[in-house]
C-alpha cells in the first residue's frame, strides 16, 4: 500500500465532510454515498474479487431491509435490532441458492441470480407480513435513541463510515490472505483454479457468505435511515443493478473502486432526482444506463484501470 498518504487524505476528507458543508442536502448525499459504498463493496467481494457477477444481490439487501422493519412492526423492537436477523436470513438464502448456482458458469450464473432475486421480490410483494405491495414503515417518531431516527444526516454519516471502515479493512486483509489469492485464481477461470488445487466451490461460497452478510447490513442501514421500504425499493432488480454499476464504474475487484464509483454516481443521482423532481427517476436511470454503457464500451475495467495506467506511467518515468 504505497498510496497510504492519499488514502489518509481521502479518509479525512470523508470524515470531515458533514462538518465542512452546512447544507442538509449535501450532508445527506454524503451519508448516501457511504451507504452505497458499503453495498457495492459488499457486492465486490463476490462480483469483483471472485469474478462471479451476481445480478441478484437485491435479495440480501432486501432481507436486511425487511428484517429491520419487520422486527419493528411485529415485535416493536428498534429497527437496527433486525440487522442480525437479516444477516442470518441472508446467510441462509445464500447457502441455499449459492451451493447449486455456483456450478453454473458465466452468463448462466448471472441469469440464475436474476431469476432467484425476482422470485423473492414477487413473493415479498404478495406476503402480508412484509406489507405486500404497499411496503413497511419504521417508527414515525423516535421512541428512544435506539431507534436511530435522526433528523440530521450527520449521525448516519458516522455510523455508515464506521461500517465501511470495518468492511474495507476486512477486504484488505482478505485480499492479502490465502483467500485473496484463491479468489483471484477463481476469477481467472474455474478449471484452471481447480487444477491448481483451489477448493473452488468452497471459496466461492465463503465469498458469497461474506458478501451477502454485508449487503444485508447495508439493507438494514438503509431501512433504518429512510424508514420506509417497498418491494421495488428494497428488492427490485434495479437495486442489484445499482450495486453492480457502482462497483464496476470504480473498478470491480479493487479495494477502493466501489467507494470511488459511489462518490461519482450517488451525487449525480441525487442531483438529477432533485432537479427533475417526481419524474426524475426516469432521467436518473437514463443517465445510469448511459454511463455504464459508455464505461463498458470505452473503459471496461473501470476508473481503477485508468488510475493504474496513470500511476504506473509516473513510476516508470522516475527510476
Amino acid at each position, binding site marked *: 500500500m504505497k498510496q497510504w498518504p492519499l488514502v489518509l487524505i481521502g479518509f479525512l476528507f470523508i470524515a470531515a465532510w458533514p462538518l465542512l458543508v452546512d447544507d442538509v442536502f449535501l450532508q445527506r448525499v454524503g451519508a448516501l454515498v457511504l451507504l452505497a459504498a458499503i453495498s457495492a463493496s459488499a457486492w465486490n467481494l463476490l462480483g469483483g474479487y471472485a469474478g462471479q457477477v451476481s445480478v441478484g444481490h437485491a435479495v440480501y439487501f432486501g432481507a436486511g431491509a425487511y428484517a429491520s422493519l419487520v422486527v419493528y412492526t411485529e415485535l416493536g423492537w428498534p429497527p437496527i435490532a433486525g440487522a442480525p436477523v437479516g444477516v442470518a436470513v441472508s446467510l441462509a438464502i445464500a447457502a441455499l441458492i449459492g451451493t447449486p448456482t455456483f456450478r453454473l458458469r458465466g452468463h448462466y450464473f448471472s441469469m440464475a441470480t436474476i431469476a*432467484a432475486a425476482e422470485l423473492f421480490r414477487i413473493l415479498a410483494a404478495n406476503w402480508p407480513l412484509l406489507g405486500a405491495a404497499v411496503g413497511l414503515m419504521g417508527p414515525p417518531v423516535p421512541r428512544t435513541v435506539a431507534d436511530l431516527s435522526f433528523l440530521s444526516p450527520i449521525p448516519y454519516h458516522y455510523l455508515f463510515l464506521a461500517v465501511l471502515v470495518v468492511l474495507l479493512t476486512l477486504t484488505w486483509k482478505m485480499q492479502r490472505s490465502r483467500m485473496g489469492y484463491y479468489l483471484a485464481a477463481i476469477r481467472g477461470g474455474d478449471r484452471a483454479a481447480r487444477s491448481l488445487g483451489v477448493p473452488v466451490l468452497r471459496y466461492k461460497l465463503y465469498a458469497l457468505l461474506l458478501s451477502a452478510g454485508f449487503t444485508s447490513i447495508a439493507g438494514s442501514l438503509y431501512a433504518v435511515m429512510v424508514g420506509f421500504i417497498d418491494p421495488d425499493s428494497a428488492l427490485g432488480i434495479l437495486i442489484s443493478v445499482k450495486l453492480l454499476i457502482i462497483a464496476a464504474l470504480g473498478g470491480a475487484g479493487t479495494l477502493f473502486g466501489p467507494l470511488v464509483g459511489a462518490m461519482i454516481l450517488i451525487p449525480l443521482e441525487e442531483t438529477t432526482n432533485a432537479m427533475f423532481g417526481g419524474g426524475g427517476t426516469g432521467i436518473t436511470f437514463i443517465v445510469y444506463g448511459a454511463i455504464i454503457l459508455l464505461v463498458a464500451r470505452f473503459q471496461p475495467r473501470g476508473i481503477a484501470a485508468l488510475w493504474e495506467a496513470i500511476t504506473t506511467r509516473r513510476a516508470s518515468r522516475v527510476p
Partner: protein
Amino acid sequence: MILLQVTVSGLLMGSVYALFSSGLTLIWGMMNVVNFAHGDFVMLAMYAAFFAFTLLKLGPIFFIPGAAAILFVLGVVVYLGLVRHVAKGPMLAQILGTFGLALVLRYAAFWAFTANFVSLPSNLAGGTFDFYGLRIEASRLLAGVLALVITTGMHLVLTRTALGSRLLAVAEDRNAAMLMGIRPDRMQAVAWGIGAASTGVAGALIALFFYVSPTVGESLSLIAFVVVCLGGFGSVPGALIAGLGIGVIQALSAYLIGAVYQDVIVYSLFLLVLWVRPQGLMGTN
C-alpha cells in the same frame, strides 16, 4: 374443457415467446454474448406498432413488417456501435454494456411515452370466435400462428440456406470460417439484425392483444433467458419447444394458483432445471 382452453391460450402465447427467444438464442449461440436488452427490444416494437396504428393509421399488414425492419436496423446498429467492442472485453463489460442499453431504452420510453399503459383496439384482427366450444380471440390466434410460422422459417433459413450455413460456420469456429472467406463481423451483424427483427415481429404481434408499457420488457427479457436456457443456447427448435412449454406452464399456473404467481412457478422451474442440468434441457456440453 376450461383446462383445454387455458392450454390453448398458453400455446398461442408460448409461440410468441418462442419467436423472440429464437432471436436471443441465435445471438447467444453465435457469439456467446447475452443481450440483456432483448425484452426492451420487444417493448420498442410494441410502441412502434402502437404509433404506426394511432398516428399513421397503418394496419397490422404494414406495421408487423415495419416493426421488423426498424428493429433489424436497431440490432445492426447496436452490434456495430456497442456489442462488437464489448464482446472482446471481460464478461462484466458485456453484461454492463447490454444492461446499460436496456436501462437507456426502458427509461427513455418511460420519459417519452410516460408510464401509462396504452393498447391497440382489441378488434384489429377480428373478434372472438367459437371453435367446437373453445373461445379464441382472433388477435391471439393470428399472433400464435404467425409466430410459429416465422420461427419455423428462421430454423429453415439457418439450416437450409447459404446464409444460414455461413452464420452457423461462424458460430462453430470463427477462425475456420474466416479461412473459408466468410466475414465473421458481417455475419454477426446479420445475426444481431435477425435476432432484433424477431423481437420486432413478436412485439408487433403481442401489441395486438396486450397492453404496452415502458417496463414490459423486463419480464419479457427474463422469459427469453428462461426459454433459451431451457432450450439450450443456439438451438431454435429447442427455443420453440421451451417457449411453448413456458407459455402453457404460465397459463396453467395463472389459472390454478393465481396470476401473480405465474412467474414464480416459471422462475422456480428455471432454477431447478439449471441446477439439475446446467447445460439446459436440450443442450449438449
